[in-house]
């Protein structure tokens, strides 16, 4: 009985296994003209360039659409002309005239001033999350048709409410909210006055290198070459596969099932570093890891405690041991790679100094506090190291980990005491972070604006005034100088301990060249990517 059954099972399994073995020979490297990318896609919500407001979608959008100008990844002080060929401001710095270059939509039609004006008006009228980036220049749904005008086929003028620094305006227009869509195609697909929003969430109508072929949520995004676009390489398609697990991403990369893995963490990167078939592309991105101290807690409201915390942390030890390949120590509120970022690192671990500060605050015996942090690595490791660091100066930290949206909800409701979280910058200008960290004018529960500083009940009017002065300064060099002073001030006098800046790594197989990472995800581009 035994032998017969074994025989039967074996007999049944053999052809099945050999069948699969045969299938194995069919697995070859990915086709030459298709680039396959493994990436976590689960946060993506919309591919409409005037709506999408998170990193992954932002990257896809910037590969499908062009803007008037784009940020220069190598020289943060400049912008690069794209749809705009040239621009000038009037004497008052209120009317800005853009002359357009020759670009072509994926439909084959030329990009006209009417498309540009329509696109910017559309962004304002729909008023989705990223709209504030350009409506801060005084555009509203009612006045935008008068203030953003197509003068002729190749000329557009923008009239701002107040005199504006042109570099500020240009940096804001380089964000995805400034993407140019094809008016005719978008309006043909509009339903219920949505300006084509529902359609554009899952389709594309741009002049970028690629166009959207399919978005299957939690599965993949397929981009197809825009035959009329600026792409000159040998790729016909880019398929981005949703792979959650970083270890799986590395395995697939090593086996040649994908050409680029995008979410490897320190652990996988260590392995990838030693693999001669893999090259790493690294870029410091505009994402900061910081601790917020909620000012509604009386202990945390003491400036000596802010400083004690900053002096107690072992920045270098954490970076070197926990996150050597994914973060660098960084203490300014502006990320490296932005214009005018201060790279000083005034704080390092000094337990005695921190203890003295605690004593000065009248908290010699310390206090108990809760630290909320993201559940995803490396945050739990960092949180435990922070717990140990602060423990040495008497701050007894209780850790509370949660999924990141949960931590954000809590912070938005000002329910945290201390929080370890990440902050990603919205657009390529120092004002983006300066505004959220420094300008909190109404600290009440029902404030109209609730910037990041509001969440921790931090209101400093002097700091806010400096941030506004820097924003409105029209001389570019002076503007930078003001921002540098602001950053030093913030390091010294704020309840936010900025600790690290994230380094993103794209691991590519040998033969894949020219993929670029930007400081913001909208700078991640396949424009120059080729595959041998």
């Amino acid at each position, binding site marked *: 009985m035994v032998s017969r059954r074994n025989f039967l099972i074996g007999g049944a399994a053999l052809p099945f296994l050999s069948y699969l073995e045969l299938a194995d020979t069919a697995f070859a490297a990915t086709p030459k003209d298709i680039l396959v990318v493994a990436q976590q896609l689960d946060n993506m919500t919309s591919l409409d360039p005037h709506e999408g407001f998170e990193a992954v979608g932002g990257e896809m959008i910037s590969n499908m659409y062009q803007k008037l100008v784009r940020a220069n990844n190598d020289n943060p002080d400049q912008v690069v002309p794209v749809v705009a060929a040239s621009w000038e401001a009037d004497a008052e710095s209120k009317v800005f005239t853009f002359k357009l270059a020759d670009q072509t939509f994926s439909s084959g039609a030329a990009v006209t001033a009417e498309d540009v004006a329509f696109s910017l008006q559309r962004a304002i009228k729909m008023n989705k999350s990223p709209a504030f980036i350009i409506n801060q220049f005084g555009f509203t749904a009612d006045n935008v048709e008068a203030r953003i005008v197509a003068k002729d086929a190749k000329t557009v003028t923008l009239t701002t409410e107040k005199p504006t620094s042109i570099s500020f305006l240009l940096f804001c227009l380089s964000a995805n909210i400034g993407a140019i869509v094809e008016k005719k195609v978008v309006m043909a697909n509009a339903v219920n006055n949505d300006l084509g929003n529902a359609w554009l969430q899952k389709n594309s109508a741009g002049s970028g290198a690629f166009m959207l072929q399919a978005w299957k949520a939690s599965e993949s995004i397929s981009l197809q070459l825009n035959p009329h676009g600026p792409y000159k390489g040998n790729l016909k398609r880019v398929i981005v596969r949703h792979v959650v697990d970083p270890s799986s991403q590395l395995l697939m990369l090593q086996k040649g099932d994908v050409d680029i893995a995008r979410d490897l963490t320190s652990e996988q990167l260590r392995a990838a570093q030693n693999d001669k078939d893999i090259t790493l592309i690294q870029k410091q991105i505009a994402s900061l890891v910081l601790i917020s101290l909620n000012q509604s807690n009386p202990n945390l409201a003491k400036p000596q405690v802010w400083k004690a915390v900053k002096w107690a942390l072992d920045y270098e*030890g954490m970076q*070197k041991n926990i996150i050597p390949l994914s973060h660098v120590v960084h203490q300014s509120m502006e990320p490296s790679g932005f214009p005018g970022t201060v790279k000083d690192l005034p704080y390092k671990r000094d337990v005695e100094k921190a203890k003295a500060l605690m004593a000065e605050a009248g908290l010699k015996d310390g206090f108990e506090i809760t630290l909320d942090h993201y*559940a995803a*690595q490396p945050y*739990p490791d960092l949180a435990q190291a922070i717990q140990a660091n602060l423990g040495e100066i008497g701050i007894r930290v209780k*850790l*509370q*980990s949660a999924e990141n949206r949960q931590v954000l909800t809590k912070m938005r409701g000002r329910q945290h005491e201390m929080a370890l979280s990440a902050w990603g910058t919205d657009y390529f200008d120092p004002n983006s972070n300066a505004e959220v960290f420094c300008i909190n004018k109404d600290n009440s529960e029902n404030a109209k604006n609730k910037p990041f500083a509001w969440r921790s009940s931090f209101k400093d009017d002097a700091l806010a005034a400096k941030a506004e002065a820097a924003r409105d300064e029209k001389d570019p060099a002076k503007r930078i100088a003001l921002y540098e002073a602001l950053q030093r001030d913030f390091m010294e006098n704020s309840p936010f301990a900025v600790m690290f800046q994230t380094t993103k790594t794209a691991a590519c197989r040998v033969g894949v060249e020219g993929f670029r990472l930007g400081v913001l995800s909208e700078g991640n581009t396949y424009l120059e990517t080729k595959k041998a």
Partner: protein
Amino acid sequence: MTSAFRNWALSETPSSRRQAAWGNRYRAWLNFKGNPLGMIGLTIIAIFVLMAILAPLLATHNPATQELGNRLAAPSAAHWLGTDELGRDVYTRILYGARVTLGMVIAVVVLVAPLGLAIGCIAGYFGGIVDTILMRITDIFLAFPRLVLALAFVAALKPGVESAVLAIALTAWPPYARMARAETLTVRGSDFIAAYRLTGASSWRIIFRHIAPLCTPSLIVRVTLDMSSIIITAASLGFLGMGAQPPSPEWGAMIATAKRFIFEQWWVPMIPAVAILLVSLAFNFLGDALRDVLDPKGN
């Protein structure tokens, strides 16, 4: 002394009810001792329980002391099982983790098994409207995706060991109720139950004295097979930030946080995994052997 007890317990003509009961217990133990896998299971569990109790004596380090410079070290004389992602001694954390993990498992079982058994037997015995109501409630919970229920429950409370235990218990009882009800249905109409009813025994007495014991064997099989899934569910919760909180050395949380090292420092996730494997295998062996012994239908 032992042989005196043995003779007394195994006496063919017990003089008291107590002596008879001890006799049965002793025979069961002898029976159990003859089952090698059961004995292996019992031994492993006993070792782990001892380790948990004696953790402070057996530990070579403090389970919370970090040494960032000596992170992910391989096993050595200084650290018998190496160090984890924060340079803490893994051997020590396994010892202390035994307390947390075993404690959680026991707490869940103690909550779940009696509840499920009671609900299932009552529903099965009374039938009719009682059955309908209880089974509808059971069905709702049973039909609910486990992880969703547990996650939501923990999210509403504070993440931590206690919430995790309650959440797992909340999702784990329905299968026991179903099982117990099915068993009850098969015996409800049998002659001996009818006989008890004729003697005027109350329904509750019949349920808890006569029907519930009949359901125990399947319950034990289920509980033992569930032990490991309880540990694993706890690990999944820990993985999502809803279970044991750092720096608690719960084994599941240890695996979840260390699984990213599987390529290079494979021992870091493998050691707690082996601990879980050993304990749940042991529970399974033990439960299985107990089943052979305790099954009243079999004897």
